[in-house]
């Protein structure tokens, strides 16, 4: 075996090699291309956001957050996320549970519906709500009679946010729950557990990391959503402006420092999300590895 390896061209460079390993220059070339690409499209823009934001000094940077309009945009963004994420958490668990643990007619249709927000452009999602709840929309006259404002108001923004973040939790849980099957639930019920006890003590603890992962992604999207919210918001400053919309308005007014300051807030949020996501991924795989290792140590 070793005789064959020494005749291999790569082995001539003095390094051990496997059948699938490329020559050194190919490896370095590929790595460089990948790194350059990453730098150009990810690191440079990210750095640009923060340098632009801080270009006029910390005082200006700080002032752009204490501006009442900015504060209200931050609050609205948080409000939308605080409503949309729990709503989709409950929906996601319910949908994943139904799809993964039971057989029923129309399952495929339900799966397709859950994916709909991924397939539809967010702008169209916004337009749907305008058509349904807007002044000229289906329920428009009824809503105005009862003095309920949905479009160009906070409820519309919340609805649009819920729509675009609909699939995240469900999509994360479905494959996980399907892989785990129903035996543990059957075991729990056979031992006398109620359905509620089974859900809290068996089903949910088994998917906790997947659930957290779904919530993190859902939250990131809820705070960052632009298109759908833009259509239903009406861009009323201090009233219906979310953080991403605020960035756009400031930018269009050539108020670059403030625009990038707000953008840096969103970028930081993204970085925190990524860190959390990596932590959850690491935690899940670490748990898995630990259990495998301990198992193999014993045998």
């Amino acid at each position, binding site marked *: 075996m070793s005789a064959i390896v020494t005749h291999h061209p790569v082995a001539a460079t003095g390094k051990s090699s496997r059948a699938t390993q490329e020559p050194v220059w190919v490896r370095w070339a590929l790595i460089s291309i990948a790194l350059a690409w990453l730098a150009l499209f990810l690191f440079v823009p990210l750095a640009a956001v923060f340098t632009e934001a801080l270009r006029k000094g910390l005082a200006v940077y700080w002032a752009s957050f204490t501006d009442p309009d900015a504060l209200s945009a931050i609050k609205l963004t948080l409000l939308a996320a605080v409503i949309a994420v729990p709503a989709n958490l409950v929906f996601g668990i319910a949908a994943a549970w139904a799809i993964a643990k039971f057989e029923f007619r129309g399952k495929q249709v339900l799966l397709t519906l859950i994916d709909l927000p991924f397939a539809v452009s967010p702008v169209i999602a916004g337009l749907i709500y305008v058509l349904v709840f807007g002044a000229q929309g289906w329920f428009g006259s009824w809503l105005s009679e009862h003095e309920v404002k949905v479009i160009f108001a906070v409820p519309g923004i919340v609805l649009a946010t819920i729509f675009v973040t609909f699939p995240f939790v469900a999509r994360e849980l479905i494959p996980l729950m399907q892989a785990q099957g129903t035996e543990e639930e059957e075991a729990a019920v056979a031992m*006398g557990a109620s359905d509620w006890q089974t859900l809290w003590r068996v089903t949910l603890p088994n998917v906790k990391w997947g659930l957290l992962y779904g919530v993190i992604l859902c939250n990131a999207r809820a705070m960052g959503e632009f298109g759908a919210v833009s259509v239903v918001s009406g861009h009323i400053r201090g009233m219906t402006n979310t953080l991403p919309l605020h960035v756009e308005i400031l930018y269009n007014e050539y108020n670059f420092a403030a625009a990038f300051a707000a953008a840096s807030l969103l970028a930081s949020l993204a970085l925190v999300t990524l860190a959390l996501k990596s932590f959850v991924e690491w935690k899940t795989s670490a748990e898995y590895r630990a259990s495998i290792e301990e198992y193999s140590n014993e045998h």
Partner: protein
Amino acid sequence: MSIEVRNISKRFGNFVALNDVSLDLPSGELTALLGPSGCGKTTLLRIIAGLEQPDSGSVIFNGQDATTSHVRERKVGFVFQHYALFRHMTVFENVAFGLRVRPRKTRPADVEIRRKVHELLELVQLDWLAERYPAQLSGGQRQRIALARALAVEPQVLLLDEPFGALDAKVRKDLRRWLRRLHDELHITSVFVTHDQEEALEVADRVVVLNKGGIEQVGAPDEVYDQPATPFVYQFLGNVNLFHSRVHGGFARIGELELPVDGHEEAQNAPAFAYVRPHDIEISRTPENGTAFAATVSHIHAIGPVVRLELAREDATELVEAELTRERFRELGLHEGEQVFVKPRQLRVFLEQHTP
């Protein structure tokens, strides 16, 4: 607790899993549901547990109809094929689960739960693993924990789905003897599903042989092995030689051979299958006029306590398998290619119209 199964039928789409099955399981016995995969044995077990609803028929526990009662109310202990241990709980919590989920009124105190769980863990000889997680256990250990967990709810019936299916051969053997001893200690009415005939014959008090959604035979292990009711049971329980024969007036004709058979006196030249177990075949070097046929030894497999011979019949193309003890084999001094005479000591005949 006794279990009666009455006229149970169950379909999955077009597939008939169980077709009008009736069965009595007396109290305190250990019964094996034995059959090939797809015969409906697991479905029957799940219907008894209440995890599956039959399309028709009823399940009766101790004389009371339990068909519509929920699995929660049936007081059955169920051990799943892949154990279904709660992976996020320690062994202790797994076993304690059934006690912890009881309504507050009937839930034992914490001290009592702890005592009970340790008692059960001692019963399965794994008390030292209480703080481990299921992923840290070997297959055999998981199996025993699953059993302890099922026993924690003090079930009146213990149901086990392929309890040794996922274990390696050595552990299987140990564990099934252990299960038998445990049953002798506890005397809970128990039913286990298996596709392994050796396992069923060794462990169970009674064996129920299933095939294609129906029951072929019910009986004690030696009964089903020695007096198989159908050709299927004959073939499924152990190795067997099949001869195409004709039965005429109480005699079965295999080639040149005529052998008396019971119960077929009225048959007139009827085509039949004759079954002979390899260990019921006698080999000799001298012809025994009319009661043996000539064959050539085509292969000798002499590993273990039993010597297996492959014999080519001289009057037909069929191969015959025979098993000899080592002493007999040495006595005969056989070699490949030699001519011998083959005599079935015991054979069982089924007329062809009775076979599917």
